[in-house]
């Protein structure tokens, strides 16, 4: 008959191994590129062409791109931020309609150069299937902004919620 200490020792090794495996598994699923969230469609290009006298130029919305994501090991969320040197014009983005149970759209996010990561889609359940959500960009320049082109690099990041 094996001594209890031997059993405990074996149990300890197994549990240690199991824990290490769990941690390794979690790390693997946490590495960018594994089950990657992707951006699809056409990168948004917005041209402001009309204005009504007395009001600001007419805002233009672009819905030609999407974010595709899936649930991770934990409850997760997607944040957004932008880099746009010498930004002149107002640009915001909000998630289009999301299938029930696949996350919740945050309020429209105003994209400002150098901003911190800001919640875009929250409460994405763990292990939810592949989900595609349209990105609704709206540009709303003002006459006082003048003319020109803003080029943003908009980054979406899926992180633990």
């Amino acid at each position, binding site marked *: 008959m094996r001594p209890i200490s031997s059993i405990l020792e074996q149990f300890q090794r197994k*549990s240690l191994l199991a824990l290490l495996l769990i941690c390794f598994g979690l790390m693997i*699923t946490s590495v*960018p590129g594994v089950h990657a969230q992707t951006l699809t469609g056409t990168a948004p290009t917005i041209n*402001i062409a009309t204005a009504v006298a007395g009001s600001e130029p007419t805002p233009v919305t672009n819905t030609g791109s999407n974010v595709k994501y899936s649930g991770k090991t934990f409850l997760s969320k997607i944040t957004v931020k932008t880099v746009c040197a010498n930004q002149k014009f107002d640009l915001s983005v909000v998630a289009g309609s999301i299938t029930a149970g696949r996350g919740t759209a945050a309020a429209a996010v105003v994209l400002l150069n150098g901003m911190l990561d800001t919640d875009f889609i929250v409460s994405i359940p763990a292990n939810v299937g592949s989900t595609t959500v349209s990105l609704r960009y709206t540009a709303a320049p003002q006459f006082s902004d003048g003319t020109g*082109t*803003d080029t943003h*690099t908009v980054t979406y990041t*899926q992180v633990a919620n």
Partner: protein
Amino acid sequence: MHIFANLRNSLRCQSVVLLPISLIFLLLMPSCLFAQASHAAKVTVPNLAVVSVSSGVVSLAINGTGVVAGVDPMTVTSQATTLSWGANTSTAKIAVKTSLALQKYTLTVQAININGVPTSTGISAPVVTLTTTSQDFMTGIGLKRGTCTLLYTGIAPASKGTGTDTHTTITFTITN
């Protein structure tokens, strides 16, 4: 006693290994980055310049009301219409002209009650006597939008007698 000593050693050993792992895991978990993707988003705004006037026909009648004996010329005014604009270049201005070449009476127009956004500062609005040649009506309106009242003044010297001038079209043109 031997069993308990072994158990204690085992647990001690386990805690020494597991505790730091657990702590690292707990610290890292909230900021766990699963995936990241970027794309470009472009917003282009070309030169925009718009102007409009409120609808309605401006009618000025010198009919004796308000006319002061001994004062010449007689005048009458109208503030019934408004003008709105928007321009996104710094050099924008509005010019005005009339379609009526041969005028018996003088008709002037001026922008008053100017409400510029973000500011009315720098806007100049002289009194313009209407002719068929475009003349500056408002300057300094660049990078602004706004509204104003159009103050039309009909001026009729007694020497011009009676009659009617019909300015079929008064054109306001905004240039960037």
